């Protein structure tokens, strides 16, 4: 280390030993992830089924971050994510679909002329489409925000849920723009693993930076105590609106990504059930934790797939369990309840991951495990 000190004079000389270690570990982690993504994209590490699941994990992480910003960080119980995703998904799909495919898919009623010949091709096309999707969704959030953000708590939840359903019903009825309930298929699968993980990484960094600004602190302040925040001179409505609009932007981009990953969408996909799925991720990961949203998204999405073996029938020693469809969902729900029983504020609470914290955990782990096996003090068993 002493020798290296001279070489690192530029960036690392001012850092303490721990910080230097953390920087190094972070860099290794990022490089490892990039290498993994590179080989995964080439098809060298895992099969296309696993890639599909990883893509969904990353998309759900973006959506969970969006919901966490408004629910976990700003403390406004909003359930409008599904509706915002619908706007993003339809905008992206209509922009990136080839002209010939559009003509075929809109077979009941032709598509409106101003969308007929729009085709944004390839990666640049997807980038532009996602950006437009995010912006349109943000505008929608801004308009919806005016009436609903004057409400609080459960009332806000009901109002946002209502608007989300209104968006879905509108999309169901605009046959010549969204193809109505028939839905859209053959959306180009431009969003590969680089896209999903790239967008996720971008929003993670964005959220981390945002929470360090005065806006981020104001959000948390509003969450903790609105009256105190207002008396400190924080404009409640302005900050709630800002959080709602950013959250809408992220939900729109997430919805657009999901459309490109899935390749087909119908209005029914964006029922309020979808918002609950994302809320589940946010609550399990921890309201107000960026790490929690990411871990929650990966955990829940993979757990649902991993538990599929339960549906197929299996053996516990000599006992043969027959095929029971839906058994995995029962086990999944039971596992969720157990997690929430032991981690009442979600896996991460409102804490974030840090290398220091991880080393502390590893250092204290033996002690904790030992504590479990320690003979109980007298009378302890009666508790």
């Amino acid at each position, binding site marked *: 280390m002493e020798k290296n000190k001279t070489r690192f004079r530029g960036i690392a000389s001012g850092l303490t030993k721990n910080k230097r270690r953390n920087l190094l570990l972070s860099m290794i982690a990022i490089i490892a992830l990039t290498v993994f993504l590179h080989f995964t994209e080439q098809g060298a590490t895992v099969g296309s089924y696993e890639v599909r699941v990883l893509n969904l994990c990353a998309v759900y992480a973006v959506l969970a971050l969006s919901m966490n910003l408004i629910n976990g960080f700003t403390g406004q119980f909003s359930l409008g994510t599904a509706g915002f995703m619908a706007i993003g998904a339809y905008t992206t799909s209509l922009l990136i679909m080839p002209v010939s495919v559009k003509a075929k898919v809109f077979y009941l009623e032709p598509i409106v002329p101003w969308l007929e010949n729009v085709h944004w091709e390839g990666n640049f096309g997807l980038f532009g489409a996602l950006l437009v999707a995010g912006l349109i969704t943000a505008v929608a959030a801004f308009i919806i925000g005016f009436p609903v953000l004057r409400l609080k708590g459960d009332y806000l939840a009901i109002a946002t849920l209502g608007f989300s359903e209104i968006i879905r019903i509108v999309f169901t009825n605009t046959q010549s723009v969204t193809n109505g309930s028939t839905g859209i298929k053959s959306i180009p699968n431009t969003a590969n693993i680089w896209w999903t993980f790239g967008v996720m990484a971008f929003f993670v960094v964005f959220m981390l930076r945002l929470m360090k600004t005065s806006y981020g602190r104001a959000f948390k302040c509003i969450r903790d105590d609105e009256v105190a925040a207002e008396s400190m001179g924080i404009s409640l409505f302005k900050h709630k609106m800002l959080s709602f609009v950013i959250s809408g932007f992220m939900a729109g981009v997430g919805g657009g990504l999901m459309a490109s990953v899935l390749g*087909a969408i119908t209005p029914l996909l964006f029922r309020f059930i979808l918002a609950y799925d994302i809320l589940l991720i946010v609550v399990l990961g921890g309201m107000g934790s960026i790490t929690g949203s990411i871990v929650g998204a990966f955990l829940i999405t993979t757990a649902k797939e991993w538990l599929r073996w339960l549906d197929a029938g299996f053996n516990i020693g000599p006992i043969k369990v027959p095929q029971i469809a839906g058994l995995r969902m029962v086990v999944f729900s039971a596992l969720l309840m157990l997690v929430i029983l032991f981690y009442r504020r979600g896996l991460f609470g409102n804490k974030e991951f840090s290398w220091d914290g991880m080393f502390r955990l590893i250092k204290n782990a033996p002690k904790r495990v030992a504590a479990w096996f320690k003979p109980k003090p007298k009378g302890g068993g009666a508790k």
Partner: protein
Amino acid sequence: MKKTLTLVMALLLTLALVLTGCGGNANGGATPEPVTPTDSGTDPAPVETGDDDVIKVGIFEPLTGANAAGGQMELEGIKVAHSLVGEVLGKKIVLVEMDNKSDDVEAVTAAERLVNSEKVDIVVGSWGSSVCIAAGDTFMNAKVPAIGTSCTNPLVTLDNPYYFRVCYLDDFQGTLLANFAKQEGYKTAAVITDVSDTYAIGLKKYFVDAFGAENIVAEAQFNKGDQDFTAQITSVMAANPEVIFAPSGYAEAGLMMKQAADLGYNILFLGADTWETEVMFEVGGVATENCRFTTFFDADAAPTPESTQFLTAYEAMFGGKPKGAVTALGYDAYMVAIAAIEKAGTTDGEALQKALTELDVTGVTGRCVFDENGDAVKNQAIIKTVQDGGFKYISTVVVD
């Protein structure tokens, strides 16, 4: 106390992990042979056979979620068919059940798992179209043919040479209903459509085309889940139609007929195969006796060799009669899949696809030939009504 519980939970989880490990290697989701008696008592290890020794048929159905009832009915049909034909090309056929949870997102991963992890040779399913549309590209890219059961949306087979289906489509059913109405002597009709249901929109289009747009005196719309149809009924009845065509779900249909009767209108309602659910007359009561609808199959229709075989096997396996026409579709889809494998003489995806396009088989729901889109060209439909709290067979319509 809490610590003990934690420990127990941790142990259970570890156990679960170990078990999956075993399950993953030995069975790997390849379902432990439901119908072979030889395997049931013995060690599960022999299931570890190479891909060459068995033919895997993937079942892509909503076994849980909103459409679970439909998925389960089709699964019964597939199992009955499998009990009759459990072997093809001298190899045993293994069914691989995969639940798509009636959810588009889950459907894509389920499809991906079928073709890339389980490596099935051919897929049967699903009930409902949106899951098939979402999963279609996965099957096409993997060159694994899929035979849809009751997915009627045109987008399922559009631009997808690997998706076929044994059900008849909106155009056939809509046209048939329009012709039926004309034959019965009705001159004018009103249409009340569920706009949130693509199936209803499609039916309406083809019904109107066949009945003649000039004979449609009134139109009204509603959304799935609506409870009150008095406004729609009153507005279309103002134009004095002789019959109302109402493509919709079963619950809405029941409510609509009940409300029409309550308003004092005695008019015939026409509908399609979705109505064939007990809920329809439970909701609508006596008022539903004033309806006619089309469906794929009925146990009371004149027996054919195929339907007798199906009904006997069903009786032996589950007892009683099939609960819905889609059970017969599940049966037919499986039989078509096996016929295709037999014709192709291999399980190669491209050869199977080619075999399917040339196939001509007669199933329980009538003759089945695929057109250039992969849609079944059907020639037979059944008209039914409600009587004394049960469905009643009226006639079989064969179109040449």
